[in-house]
């Protein structure tokens, strides 16, 4: 068979091998290596202990938002309201905490609990609003979340009058905000079980299979008896709650309720998810890939900081990375298709069927 000739050719094998890795993981591992090398050469502090800790702290918030975003991408949707959700959560939970703490200065614990509950409720409401818009009213997720992003931002500014909300319990700022235990930030300890929970949902739960099927072909999922609307609604709620928790943790990090907090997270979360293997066409995405994508985005932002390139440059770089990620995603889809095409042809060949 001609097929075996090329299989023995080492160059072809190497090319095939690289393409298979690319087809499996996308361009991300390659890019990460490049990024680390470049930043480490530019500034030897990049891989230093202090900087790694800083990056871990930053990564926690983005991880939550990106995992939520990835769930929605898997189901074939989009969430552009992530940034507004974070700001709304920050202002609402800070207001509640400040109020409780103001009345009972001794009850820092209760104040924090009230703040956390507020964040959860905000997340739930935001998720339901988005989810109802998409799953019940059947409006395009792009439009729904663009509209709700504007609405939530407006509500945030109304509540806060554009001012930051201070007077938070000190314990909140020192523990949740910057404390760490066994080398992991408290925010990380909060996030870890959530990430595990999301992993179980996506990889082991029936729900995960459903949203993959819906994202791949919603009509087919419906005909197979999947309650499409309900699953999609749940996805928006999951994303919004995860994001709201990120918003709550972030509030502790910045030690006040900020009305303009987290605006960059919308784009960053999409970038992290997509570069981590989630498809904008739905039906694909993974927890591990997304976390790797988060690492990438954080590395990029932090490394550029260390190179004394400001946030403006970061925005440019991030935009370019997103475009690149989408193009790479398409290339990968082709690589995957080519791989199967090849197998399909060789299967139809009786000589190789054996």
């Amino acid at each position, binding site marked *: 068979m001609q097929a075996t000739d090329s299989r023995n050719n080492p160059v072809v094998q190497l090319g095939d091998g690289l393409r298979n890795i690319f087809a499996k993981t996308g361009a991300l591992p390659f890019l990460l290596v490049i990024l680390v090398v470049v930043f480490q050469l530019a500034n030897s502090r990049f891989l230093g202990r202090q900087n790694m800790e800083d990056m871990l702290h930053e990564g926690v918030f983005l991880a939550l938002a990106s995992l939520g975003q990835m769930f929605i991408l898997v189901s074939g949707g989009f969430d552009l309201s992530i940034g507004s959700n974070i700001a709304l959560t920050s202002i609402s939970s800070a207001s509640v905490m400040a109020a409780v703490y103001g009345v009972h200065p001794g009850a820092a614990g209760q104040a924090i609990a009230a703040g956390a509950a507020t964040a959860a409720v905000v997340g739930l409401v935001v998720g339901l609003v988005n989810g109802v818009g998409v799953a019940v009213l059947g409006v395009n997720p792009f439009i729904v979340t663009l509209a709700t992003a504007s609405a939530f931002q407006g509500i945030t500014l109304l509540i806060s009058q554009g001012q930051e909300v201070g007077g938070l319990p000190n314990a909140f700022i020192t523990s949740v905000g910057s404390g760490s235990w066994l080398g992991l930030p408290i925010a990380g300890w909060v996030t870890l079980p959530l990430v595990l929970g999301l992993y179980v949902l996506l990889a082991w739960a*029936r729900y*995960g299979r459903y949203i993959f099927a819906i994202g791949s072909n919603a009509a087919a999922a419906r005909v*197979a*008896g999947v309650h499409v609307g309900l699953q999609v609604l749940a996805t928006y709620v999951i994303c919004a709650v995860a994001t709201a928790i990120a918003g709550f943790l972030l509030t502790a990090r910045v030690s006040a309720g900020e009305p303009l907090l987290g605006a960059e997270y919308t784009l960053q979360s999409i970038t992290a998810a997509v570069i981590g293997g989630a498809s904008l066409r739905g039906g*694909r995405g993974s927890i591990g890939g997304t976390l790797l994508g988060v690492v990438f985005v954080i590395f990029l932002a932090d490394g550029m900081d260390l190179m004394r390139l400001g946030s403006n440059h970061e925005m440019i770089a991030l935009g370019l990375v997103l475009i690149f990620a989408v193009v790479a995603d398409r290339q990968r889809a082709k690589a995957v298709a*080519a791989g199967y095409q090849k197998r399909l*042809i060789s299967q139809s060949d009786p000589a190789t069927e054996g």
Partner: protein
Amino acid sequence: MDAVAGHLDERGAPIVSLVEITKRFEGVVALDGVSLDVAAGEVVVVLGENGAGKSTLVNVMIGALQPNEGTIYVRGQRVSHQDPAAARRQGINAVLQDFSLAPSLSVADNLFLGREPMRLFIRDRARARREGREAMQMLGVNIDVDTPVLFLSRAEQQMVEIVKALCGRPGALILDEPTATLTGEETRRLFEIVTRLKSEGWGVLYITHRMEEVQRLGDRVVVLRDGRHISTYRVANVSETHLIQDMVGRPLSALYPAKVSATTNAPPVLRVDNLTSKDKKILGVSLEVRPGEIVGIAGLVRSGCSEVARACFGLIELDQGFIEIAGGRVEKPDLRKMLHLGLIYLPQDRRGEALSLSRTIEENVSLEVLGEWRYSPFGLVNHAAVHEAVDAITERLDVRPRNIHQPVVSLSGGNQQKVVLGRALTRPRSVYVFDEPTAGVDVGARQAIYHHMHEICKSGAGILFASSDLEEIVHLSSRVYVMHEGRIQTELHGDEINDEAVVSYSFGRDSANRGTLRASN
């Protein structure tokens, strides 16, 4: 083959000839030294199962793929590096399975896309519309040229594609599985057009895997298998069995299993009473399916056969009527309720409604049954149980490849259809409703699907299937309901089920025109 070569001089000069074409993809041979030519005024049918190399052949011919070896001649001239635009200029026109129409543009705009008639610097829309209308009329196609293409049915879109192809330089017309999604009446119209083009001196290359089309249309038939040219025959000189053997490379026992009949006196597993849909596509339809029988619904395009199948599953809103299943009466069917009551519907549109293409065989097969406790206790998937169940089903259906973690997009049409069928077999059900069970499926898979439909019936369930494939209706059904304009025109039993009866009733009893479908034979 030598005998055929002897006939060559009887035909006109070839419009296009391929000589010893070899095409490899990454070292895998898709076409292996295939030679073929199409002369003016003849229809050459290329027959082959999926994966036989038919599409590659078409793509080489229209210049979308470059062959690794071999030569292409157009009107005796050797062409070296072909591209689709150049091929069109030389008179090689193709209507592929995936249409190249812009959905939001009107028919006229589509016909002249890229070569709009101009008047100074302005598009001459009046002329485009006039010429478009003339072209339509010449082919006897009745489509308004101002309609945006997206409002047309698939058959109408195909007509537009054909008219578009015919607006180019006369020469060869390649039709790649044109009837895959057409119903009986639409197919008949298409055949008329092909016959007419032939008489006007076009050379037609007709790609198909449907045996009956060879007899109806072809002058010569070329059989491909595994990328190789197996045989060429004059259609008049070859039998169907012979062609099937060449196609599959092994003798195929009878395509259709022996007919089943209902278990006597058993109450129906499904009864539909006076069903009328909101969109009036079905009007007062009543039918029943008894355990152990295969009931066919036949009819022309828009006669409502498909819609009856969909309505049973709750995919179409009902105006009146009810469904009786599992001893209960359902006034407002919705698909989750129907699934629960033991009815499953297998859609005709595999890519649109049946499969999540990018997901694996396992996920697709198990999607419907996943909610059961043993497959997902506490909402968590029991991977081992799912794996085992899906493995058993794919083995039973002989889905290839056997690796159930492969995405279904990588499967052939026949194997995709087996995956759809596999989903129905994940648990016993009382009624299976198929909509075009074998559309776009190769002979091997077809036989397997019929076999499994048969098995389902033996287990005591009932099957209702809508089909525009006359042969399938006649050979598979224990009873047939023939539909006409949304109503059931008649019910045929036993020996009454034959081509003539089905066709004449599907044209409406009064206007019964016996053998209309056969006229083009």
